[in-house]
């Protein structure tokens, strides 16, 4: 039995001996799986494969142990190419970095860009790739951080980007006056080709519009939300089905709550509502509301109108709904975190509902230098992340204790960051560079 299980390979002249049990880890949908399948006269004394033996050795080791160790003499790109040949690329990706934890992140790579202006947004793909929006271009990187063909929506100013799945990117762009361009569209992440353009219809007439912030609903109902500004009445939040490509709903702006200019949209599955935040400096007063599309109502909203009189006051600069759906976390220009309780009814009255937690960090922090960026917030698996200047803070636990700080010496302040595919991507304002942070795989002992 033992000898029948044994398999010998001659790869590029070098002999390898392994077992069919080890090779079974490659799966039937791989080159090695097919090679040993009974439809292809198996049982030969030795299989010849005309490929690089060093890479084969690394990949065989991966199949044996499940762990990836790349020898220094093997360039990573070469290994990826060989993994693609054998159909083992998914195995390599799965072994390269571990499950995401904000407190174990290590800088894995820094990728320089070539865009002329400031970065707009960076988004992580579900498979570990990412895309970066710069002005009117979106640069797309696969998980090996190889750049793919860039995409653009007629070279319009891009406002927001997002991944529908690992292979589809949705872009919102500004409309140029007098031209029917701008709006929102889906592109193939692999080829950069335009797949579908989303339309806004008002009174059955397709309208040209500027699409702003984006949000995807839970994966099972295929909805995309975007803030929209048309030139007539098309101010509000549009909803599309990304399977059919059709507009399914539109939430027109009520007086006193600007939806068309929203900075941040977020779907709250537990409340069946969309959170909309329109923030300084786009508007003078911050507005945060929950929209219920079923009856077109705003069951909850909050505004700081009337309490901020000068620029020195604490201003809400970014907002994110916490994962439990019970509260909204906000951040101000001093990097203070604040929480607004969503359960406490309507806190419309003069924005008193924020529980600010002043941080001692604020005291010894250097004065923000001129090229500072507005802070941003993110949540992932119960951890809360905020970026301020050139660092990202990680807060853990139900009390949101500051547990880690991610900082790097160059690239200037961070203008946006995103978490996905078990990676954190941080886009820096200067030098067009973005950093990739990963949690290393668990150590063996």
């Amino acid at each position, binding site marked *: 039995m033992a000898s029948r299980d044994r398999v010998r390979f001659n790869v590029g002249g070098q002999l390898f001996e392994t077992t069919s049990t080890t090779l079974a880890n490659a799966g039937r*949908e*791989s*080159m090695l799986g*097919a*090679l040993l*399948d009974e*439809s*292809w*006269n198996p049982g030969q004394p030795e*299989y*010849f*494969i*005309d490929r690089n033996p060093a890479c084969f050795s690394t990949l065989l080791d991966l199949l044996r142990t499940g762990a990836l160790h790349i020898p220094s003499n093997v360039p990573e790109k070469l290994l990826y190419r060989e993994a*693609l*040949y054998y*159909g083992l690329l998914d195995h390599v990706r799965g072994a390269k970095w571990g499950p995401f934890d904000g407190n174990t992140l290590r800088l894995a790579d820094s990728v320089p860009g070539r865009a002329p202006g400031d970065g707009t947004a960076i988004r992580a793909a579900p498979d570990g790739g990412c895309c970066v929006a710069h002005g009117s271009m979106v640069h797309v990187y696969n998980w090996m951080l190889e750049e793919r063909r860039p995409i653009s929506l007629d070279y319009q100013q891009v406002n927001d980007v997002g991944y529908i799945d690992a*292979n589809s990117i949705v872009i919102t762009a500004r409309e140029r006056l007098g031209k029917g361009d701008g709006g929102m569209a889906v592109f193939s992440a*692999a*080829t950069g080709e335009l797949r579908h353009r989303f339309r806004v219809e008002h009174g059955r007439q397709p309208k040209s519009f500027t699409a702003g912030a984006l949000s995807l609903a839970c994966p099972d109902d295929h909805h995309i939300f975007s803030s929209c500004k048309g030139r007539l009445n098309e101010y509000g939040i549009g909803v599309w089905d990304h399977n059919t490509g059709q507009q399914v709903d539109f939430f027109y702006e009520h007086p006193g709550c600007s939806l068309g200019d929203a900075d941040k949209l977020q779907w709250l599955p537990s409340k069946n509502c969309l959170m909309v935040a329109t923030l300084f400096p786009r508007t003078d007063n911050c507005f945060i509301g929950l929209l219920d599309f079923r009856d077109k109502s705003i069951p909850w909203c909050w505004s700081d109108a009337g309490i901020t009189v000068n620029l020195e006051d604490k201003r809400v600069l970014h907002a994110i709904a916490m994962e439990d759906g019970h509260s909204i976390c906000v951040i101000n220009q001093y990097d203070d975190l604040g929480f607004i309780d969503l359960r406490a009814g309507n806190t419309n009255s003069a924005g008193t509902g924020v529980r600010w937690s002043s941080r001692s960090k604020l005291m010894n922090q250097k004065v923000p230098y001129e090229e500072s960026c507005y802070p941003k917030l993110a949540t992932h698996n119960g951890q809360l992340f905020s970026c301020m200047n050139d660092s990202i803070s990680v807060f853990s636990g139900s009390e949101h204790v500051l547990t880690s700080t991610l900082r790097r010496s160059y690239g200037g302040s961070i203008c946006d960051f995103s978490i996905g595919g078990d990676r954190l991507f941080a886009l820096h304002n200067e030098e067009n560079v973005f950093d990739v942070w990963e949690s290393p795989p668990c150590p063996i002992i």
Partner: protein
Amino acid sequence: MNSQSQRRKNFKIEAFKHKVELDPKYAERTWKVLEHAIHEIYNNNASRLSFEELYRSAYNMVLHKYGDKLYTGLVATMTSHLNKIAKSIESAQGGLFLEKLNHKWADHNKALQMIRDILMYMDRSYVPTSHKTPVHELGLNLWRDHIIHSTNIQARLQDTLLDLIQRERTGDVINRGLMRNITKMLMDLGSSVYQDDFEKPFLDVSASFYSGESQQFIVCCDCGSYLKKAERRLNEEMERVSHYLDAKTEVKITSVVEREMIANHMQRLVHMDNSGLVNMLMDDKYDDLSRMYSLFKRVPEGLSTIRDVMTSYLRERGRVLVTDTERLKDPVEFVQCLLNEKDKHDKIISTAFNNDKTFQNALNSSFEYFINLNNRSPEFISLYLDDKLRKGLKGASEEEVEVVLDKVMMLFRYLQEKDVFEKYYKQHLAKRLLSGKTVSDDAERSMIVKLKTECGYQFTSKLEGMFTDMKTSEDTMLDFYAKQSAELGDGPTLAVQILTTGSWPTQPTAACNLPPEILTVCEKFRTYYLGTHSGRRLTWQTNMGTADIKATFGKGHKHELNVSTYQMCVLMLFNSADGLTYREIEQATEIPALDLKRCLQSLACVKGKNVLRKEPMSKDISEEDVFYFNDKFTSKFVKVKIGTVVAQKESEPEKQETRQRVEEDRKPQIEAAIVRIMKSRRVLDHNSIVAEVTKQLQLRFLPNPVVIKKRIESLIEREFLERDKADRKLYRYLA
């Protein structure tokens, strides 16, 4: 060469090329190798092929941008093979057609798997970026287009499949494994292929088949055997699906059978002469009923059809039962009949109708309907209980007693006039208690508890009071004799039951003249009782008592006679006289005429118990009769019980009287309800009051709207309510 020299002239510096373009001839050669391999795979000659070499060749073509050539070549090669395969399938004769198709399909799948192995790299990199169909799906699509949808195969395949199923339906054995493979193939090609090329025509053909068959069956079968056949067909179709069709087809084909065999013939089936639903119910055909239930349940309106027919049958049967004058003669048998009826149908519902709640409700509503058609039902149910509690339950175990009582309670629940029942029950209970005839105190109490649970404390408080009186009387008598025994000597023994006024159905009756011997003891008791309890009044209810007297007849025959108080009074007269006229007796005793007649009747006219002799001899008592002490009276028993001739059932005038009393009792209840409602609502219109009063009182009885109206008027007179000045239909509560 030419282009190179031109470039040199332009002194253009060429960028260093990383990728060396593959020689187009090399690409052609590589494709030829792969094409040959595909041929060999289709010809089952793959053993000489080297997978590694082929995989590497395909890889090289994709890597060097010849993916397009590779893909179009693959499509062309596969298509030409499939066309050849189509020809060979077409040429298969008759029954071999399906076999051939199945065989070729298996080959194609195997080949497709191997081709996909070779082209795995193309599938992974070229196919997604150029939006092509992956190799496996491509192979299935080509098979669909060139084999299944080819003109010479499509119709033939469909006919063959349908023909085989038809043959199986008529009893042939077919190759189910082959059928399974072919339908599986259609499903693999996509659910739309399975549906369009097989399922839809299959359902159409099935519908017309079952439509025809059901027409045939309904003419020549009775309901029971029709249902058996329908059930068998339904099971066959489900079995067919499980053997060789897509599981999703089951719902569709069963709905076809259900529609054609059941839904379309439902009315005809339930009403079928001599075998329809009514006959099944009458004859307790549990199997047939159960089959009908489970089959009809599958179709819309099915169960309601059964239920409606059952309800109207039950109502009619019940109506006949409760209005049958023969039955009304014996209340016990009348109620027993109702109970049997209930048991029978309960059993049908539990065994055949799956204890369906809606059927139970239909049964209950039917009983409620017909029990209340006869206004004597409350009296009869109480009489039935009386019978059971007097003697019917003698020797029965506690559980058996409970079962009987529970069944009666079930009938009780159907009664609308529960207060009438209460009235009768009280009367009957009083008689049982006073005559000491109850079989078991436990059974009596258990019944009271049941009534209490059903109707509340108020309903039974007086009944419970009666039990308390019995107990207290016993204690009082013990005490009386303990204290007075010295004075009493050996006069007649007195047993007094002290009944609280109000708790018992007593009527004010003129007390009769008691014999002096008794009167003395009675007076002693009165003195004793009033001495221990102050502020009470004792009234003798001589109409309800009993007495044991010793009598000596001719030849020294001694007998102990068990008689009523009235009878005792009459008999005592004969201690001092041998013959008395009716008038004399009436004068001496002052017993009310009706009671006296009854009492004399039972003393003189009952054979074997005639301690008096009457002249003239006749069945009825007239005021001119003369009575004599019957010296010749004999009996084989020492103790002789002389019953009163009591109408078990109430006579017509008594019934009227009871009814009137019930109506009187209802008045304060209705008024109380009106006042309660108006107190909380303040203002209400007439119809709402009637509705609310009815709702409040329906647990006890169903008030008549006319009576409610009268009560409202009375309340207005007494200034509890007033009519609204603007709207005469509105009433206001006056605090």
